[in-house]
């Protein structure tokens, strides 16, 4: 999930008895499947939680460009380079759709970026892992974007209109990402033994972090229960993770690669794969800022922003000059 462990600021799920008339009417609209729009009344906690969730998601899209940017100049062919550039450009677009959706809730773009650059805002743990070989471009598209799709498709039906509409656009483009990734894995898996070994190595390193993307089990979480009541979270982390494993394991088998989990087995009775325990200590550590690339990602992001300042200022100067000329005329 691109927005992991989103706080609602509430210690218990709101019940009808807790609610004043306007909040009760709001919850009734959500229960009836009516979308909430920017200018509609909404509880402060809903607004704040959505800002957190959407901006975490937006930041993930923007920071998500960095691990892939690492391979643009070293893509094996011009075709692969063009595809990778197009995918990275899509991620920038996804970030922009989402920032716009967050801004409808009364926060400015500058505030959102300041929170990212100061390290106050979170982004998905997955982007703090390094991209060591070309095969990682395949594994990211296949596993990371694949997981993102599983998480995002339900959000196309979430209760907040601007977020839901942004998700529709994102999902349409995301399946290109997953497929180009699998296509890279296919080429490597069908290539030389060395190339196949690269693909296996990438799967080994990205499998567990991809499962962590969905976040720890939230069966007992008040935040998740409240978000579910608001319909900004439609399935539990465990349900989505199970869906990911169920659809991805056969894809790995087709590639002739081995999922790095000795406990993985298909349960014919349930129709689901059972998988081994996830190392949540690692996940919490990465979230706290101690992943392999946390500092590098943030520094690269801040440098890009600061080194682009002169260009943004020039655009403003140009716009101001032309506005002044127009006024005189």
């Amino acid at each position, binding site marked *: 999930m691109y927005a992991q462990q989103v706080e609602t600021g509430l210690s218990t799920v709101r019940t009808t008895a807790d609610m004043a008339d306007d909040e009760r009417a709001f919850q009734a609209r959500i229960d009836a499947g009516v979308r909430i729009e920017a200018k509609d009344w909404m509880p402060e906690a809903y607004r704040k939680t959505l800002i957190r969730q959407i901006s975490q998601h937006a930041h993930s899209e923007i920071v998500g460009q960095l691990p892939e940017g690492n391979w643009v100049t070293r893509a094996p062919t011009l075709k692969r380079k063009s595809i990778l550039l197009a995918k990275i450009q899509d991620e920038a677009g996804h970030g922009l*759709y989402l920032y716009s959706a967050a801004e409808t809730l009364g926060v400015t773009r500058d505030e959102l*970026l300041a929170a990212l650059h100061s390290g106050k805002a979170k982004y998905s743990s997955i982007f703090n892992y390094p991209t060591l070989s070309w095969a990682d471009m395949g594994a990211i598209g296949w596993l990371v974007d694949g997981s993102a799709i599983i998480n995002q498709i339900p959000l196309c039906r979430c209760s907040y209109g601007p977020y839901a509409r942004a998700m529709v656009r994102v999902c349409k483009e995301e399946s290109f990402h997953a497929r180009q990734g699998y296509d890279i894995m296919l080429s490597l898996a069908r290539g030389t033994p060395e190339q196949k070994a690269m693909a296996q190595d990438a799967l080994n390193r990205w499998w567990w972090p991809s499962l962590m993307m969905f976040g720890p089990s939230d069966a007992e979480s008040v935040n998740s229960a409240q978000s579910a009541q608001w319909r900004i979270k439609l399935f539990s982390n465990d349900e989505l993770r199970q869906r990911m494993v169920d659809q991805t394991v056969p894809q790995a088998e087709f590639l002739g690669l081995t999922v790095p989990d000795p406990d993985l087995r298909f349960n014919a009775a349930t129709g689901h794969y059972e998988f081994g325990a996830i190392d949540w200590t690692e996940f919490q550590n990465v979230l706290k800022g101690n992943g392999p690339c946390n500092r590098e990602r943030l520094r690269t992001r801040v440098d890009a922003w600061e080194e682009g300042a002169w260009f943004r200022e020039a655009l*403003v100067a140009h716009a101001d000059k032309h506005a002044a000329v127009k006024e005189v005329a």
Partner: protein
Amino acid sequence: MSTQLSKEWPLWEVFIRSQHGLAHKHVGSLHAPDAEMAVNNARDVYTRRNEGVSIWVVRAADIVASSPSDKGALFEPANSKVYRHPTFFPMPEEVKNL
């Protein structure tokens, strides 16, 4: 850290005419310092896959919108005027072309 823009860029709403001769449709919004950059950015953000043949950008501040609280006064009167729909008038089966 100079995270603050020297001046916040205005918000623009973006409308795209798709290939099929339909009206321009709202697709989203973006920030840009002026109209020209808004069109350029709209091209990059909203038409990467042949989504359109024409772009309109309008400063969000220039859009006048109806308020959600006026919804009743504005739209309820239409509810009671079902005779505005052709299906209000059942036609005998023998009558054709109506």
